[in-house]
């Protein structure tokens, strides 16, 4: 495909024989093209319809016919229409100015589109070609460089945006010249490189990359080992996600996937956040558009939007572009990771992407796999999640992509192909339960079924011991145990009746209720409760375990529930109060008095 020499061209407009074809069939957004000349699988082509160019991607080649999925409505399209092939796969432009943008799945800037309605065939530039950026060189003439190496940097919303040797360039190069510090647009040459044959390559601040290929401009990818704080207690304390880790949130409709992801996107300790709204509601992205420019990043105090890129391919936008949207998002994530940043990528919902694949595969009459999804769905899903990770770059610096996707299982049944495929591809499982959502126990993550495999990593346990306390992993496991034993006790009480079991069963159950109410449940809409910094989580864990470990005396099971309800109420009030505030201390004091009164003597 594209040779290294044209790595920087905005599009390969090489005049040599572009392949063309004619439309011969139309089935919804699948179009069959009679092609004259060579073309490639996944090549991009344009169907010319009434003077409008409709973008499409080849998804199957068979005997001179190209089966293409059109990224637009095909209404009115006629057989015989001209099709022009481009010679490249689905590519996006990468460069300064990707942050704070709202894109569609193909990285068309939504804000620069005209009119209220999306017009078919209207494509807008990903980057602002006019804007000048303050460039600082990092490399110097004579340096030997390879793809991904940093040549210079510009300041993008306070984030160091490194200008890199284009990922497409293969082999070693020598820096011949580099631009002086100053203002440049994304299309101006900022460096000249020479390859081993003496051939010169000019580099600008923009490069293009085919989204379906992983960017591999790094030295190696160790196992992740560092906690990524999200401020969500059930994640950080009980099922931690890590820098470079993968996780997914499956759950029936209305169980809280989107609220959970949005909470993470606002609070997580990330340099860059890429959000792909993939086949979900337009009003949900409008919420992001409205809030993110106003809300502060709790880590830097800057506006959240400054570190965020939103890719919106909502459910009413073309289905084929839905599939592209997650790849576009991942490519941007990889781009920023290569600059040494901590990137968090979120996709809501990956099931919609899988459904887009299913719609296409059905139209092509492929042999269906389970639930009519394509046979290779598990491979597609795991390849995609594998693009996340913590990496050491060639210059020894580190970067990471933490990826959390939501899954929308049909009928809320977790034994369905997308959930199963994703479970194999990820290490954190945040299962939202209908029952918990129904009883408004938010976030409705099932405390017993959910897990983080990272907790078992000795390298994470080590960093947790250093960052929080040496006892931490032990305490977390105790909390998990308390939840399991509480569930067993509740079952026994339900089978045998309140008064046929010993008071101990009630105590065991209510201890788990404390953990549930105070640690697991968290109000995403309360200004204070929504985000709990790690140190506050540690404080509450210590406090809860202290209460749980104090032997208490009750004269009968009837006394247990009122006592614990009051305890829970006071602990909740603490959650709603600023950490360490006067109210916070007062509730704590009242709480400890109640506990002392009940403390069993002897």
């Amino acid at each position: 495909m594209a040779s290294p020499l044209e790595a920087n061209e905005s599009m390969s407009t090489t005049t040599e024989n572009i392949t063309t074809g004619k439309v011969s069939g139309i089935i919804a957004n699948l179009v069959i093209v009679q092609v004259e000349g060579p073309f490639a699988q996944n090549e991009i082509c344009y169907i010319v319809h009434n003077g409008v160019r409709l973008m499409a991607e080849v998804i199957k080649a068979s005997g001179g016919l190209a089966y293409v999925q059109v990224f637009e409505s095909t209404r009115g399209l006629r057989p015989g229409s001209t099709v022009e092939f481009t010679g490249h796969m689905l590519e996006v432009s990468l460069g300064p100015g990707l942050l704070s943008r709202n894109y569609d799945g193909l990285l068309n800037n939504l804000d620069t589109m005209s009119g209220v309605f999306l017009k078919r065939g209207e494509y807008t530039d990903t980057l602002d070609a006019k804007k000048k950026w303050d460039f600082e060189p990092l490399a110097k003439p004579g340096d030997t460089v390879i793809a991904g190496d940093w040549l210079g940097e510009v300041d993008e919303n306070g984030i160091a945006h490194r200008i890199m040797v284009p990922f497409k360039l293969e082999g070693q190069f020598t820096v011949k010249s580099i631009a002086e510090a100053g203002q440049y647009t994304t299309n101006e040459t900022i460096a000249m490189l020479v390859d081993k044959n003496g051939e010169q390559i000019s580099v600008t601040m923009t490069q293009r990359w085919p989204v379906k290929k992983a960017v591999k401009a790094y030295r190696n990818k160790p196992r992740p080992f560092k906690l990524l704080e999200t401020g969500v207690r059930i994640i950080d304390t009980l099922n931690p996600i890590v820098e470079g880790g993968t996780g997914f949130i499956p759950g029936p409709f209305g169980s809280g996937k989107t609220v959970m992801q949005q909470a993470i996107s606002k609070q997580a300790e990330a340099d860059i956040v890429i959000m792909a709204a993939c086949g979900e509601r337009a009003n949900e992205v409008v919420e992001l558009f409205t809030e993110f420019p106003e809300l502060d990043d709790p880590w830097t105090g800057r506006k959240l939007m400054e570190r965020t890129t939103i890719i919106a391919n909502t459910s009413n936008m073309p289905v084929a572009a839905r599939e592209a949207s997650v790849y576009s998002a991942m490519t941007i994530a990889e781009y920023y990771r290569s600059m040494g940043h901590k990137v968090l990528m979120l996709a809501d919902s990956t099931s919609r992407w899988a459904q887009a694949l299913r719609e296409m595969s059905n139209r092509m009459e492929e042999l269906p796999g389970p639930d009519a999804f394509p046979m290779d769905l598990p491979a597609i899903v795991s390849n995609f999640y594998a693009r996340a990770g913590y990496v050491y770059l060639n210059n020894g610096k580190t970067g990471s992509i933490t990826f959390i996707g939501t899954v929308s299982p049909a009928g809320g049944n977790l034994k369905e192909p997308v959930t199963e495929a994703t479970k194999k591809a990820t290490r954190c499982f945040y299962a939202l339960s209908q029952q918990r959502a129904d009883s408004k126990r938010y976030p409705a993550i099932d405390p017993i079924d959910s897990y983080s495999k990272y907790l078992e990593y000795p390298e994470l346990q080590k960093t947790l011991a250093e960052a929080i306390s040496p006892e931490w992993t032990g305490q977390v496991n105790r909390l998990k145990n308390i939840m399991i034993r509480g569930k067993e006790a509740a079952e026994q009480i339900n089978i045998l009746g309140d008064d046929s079991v010993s008071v101990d069963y009630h105590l065991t159950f209510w201890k788990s209720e404390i953990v549930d109410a105070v640690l697991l449940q968290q109000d995403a809409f309360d200004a204070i409760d929504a985000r709990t910094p790690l140190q506050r989580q540690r404080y509450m864990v210590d406090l809860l375990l202290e209460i749980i470990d104090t032997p208490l005396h009750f004269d009968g099971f009837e006394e247990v529930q009122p006592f614990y309800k009051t305890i829970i109420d006071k602990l909740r009030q603490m959650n709603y109060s600023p950490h360490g505030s006067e109210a916070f201390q007062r509730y704590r004091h009242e709480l400890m008095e109640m506990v002392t009164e009940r403390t069993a003597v002897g």
Partner: protein
Amino acid sequence: METKALQRIYTKIGQITKATCTLKATDVGYEELALVDGRPAQVVKIVGDNVTLQVFSGTEGIRTNAEVVFAGKPPTLKVGDELAGRFFNAYGDPIDGGPKIEGEERDIGGPSVNPVRRKQPSELIATGIAGIDLNNSLVTGQKIPFFADPDQPFNQVMAMVALRAEADKIILGGMGLTNDDYLFFKDIFENAGALHRIISFVNTTEDPPVERLLVPDMALTAAEYFAVDKKEKVLVLLTDMTLYADALSIVSNRMDQIPSKDSMPGSLYSDLARLYEKAVQFADGGSITIIAVTTLSGGDITHAIPDNTGYITEGQLFLRRDTEIGKVIIDPFRSLSRLKQLVIGKKTREDHPQVMNAAIRLYADAANARTKLENGFDLTEYDKRTLDFAKAYSDKLLAIDVNIGTTEMLDTAWTLFAKHFSPAEVAVKKEFVEKYWK
């Protein structure tokens, strides 16, 4: 729209199935309309010069030499202010004996709104029904269905909500409506003196089922005219979307597509989302709010139709008969309005979110107590109080015959809390307890 001087007429149909016929034809556009033996049809597939048409009223009796005339354009609706007060069929032709509409002709099922041109919905729709206003507040620009078994009075509740909603226009899209229900809507709108702001597109059980597929697009095209061109607040009622989905599955099965769950087409999610996402709040005040009905079979929300709907809409209102009080209630467990966060405690009193959640938590405790009772166990004193509370809560707040303002709903909830519980049991923020405890 290009008009053709010479319409091409074909008279040789190669293949006929129950819903489609296929013939050789050239220069046909995708989704173009046609008449097959005088029956409206639409192009759904073109492979080479084989064109497959979906015949809306079915293909019974169509001969292989029937006349096929292509219209050269996709389905359209003529829009204008004269739409108001009128009743139409699925093709947009009047069925009320009135004159044809003269207006601008627009393609139905038009493009989507650019998400950055939307405004975040924030205008509360008050219905007086506490099961909605207290627990599941609605806002303009929202899309939400009633989930109900066929024997629930969903059309009545929907009409009540529509009339109380203060919309500039109410557009009814009726799919597979029984004649009785059709007349019910006509009567209730007429009696409320609201007919002049109602527009109806109706497919009844007497009409061919596949015709229904046009109804939502007709209704929404009219809605876009009033919301965009006239900046009006438009409320669209779609009933019954389950029958719409059934029509989709009829067509896709006839076209030999591989069905996914519950013999529904694999594209069901996208098909429904395309319609529901027409709900929008524009910056200039115009809005489209969609209230739909999805009938369930035996309360099963895991069936593909309610399941896909739930994943698309911004919540659902679940109707259920509470046998204890003998009234239909809006079930607080299965119901949800996702946009309520945007208004509760902001457009309504500050204690709204906490009161709502506390009441539902206590109602859940009552459900547990009931399970205990059914399993033959003794109830604690607390259990008994939750049951009393649940009954009163259901009667005074959840029942669909409640019609009060939101502040009164909150006060009623506080009264019930005080009557049955201590502040610690209710567990809401202390500042609210101090202020509102009765």
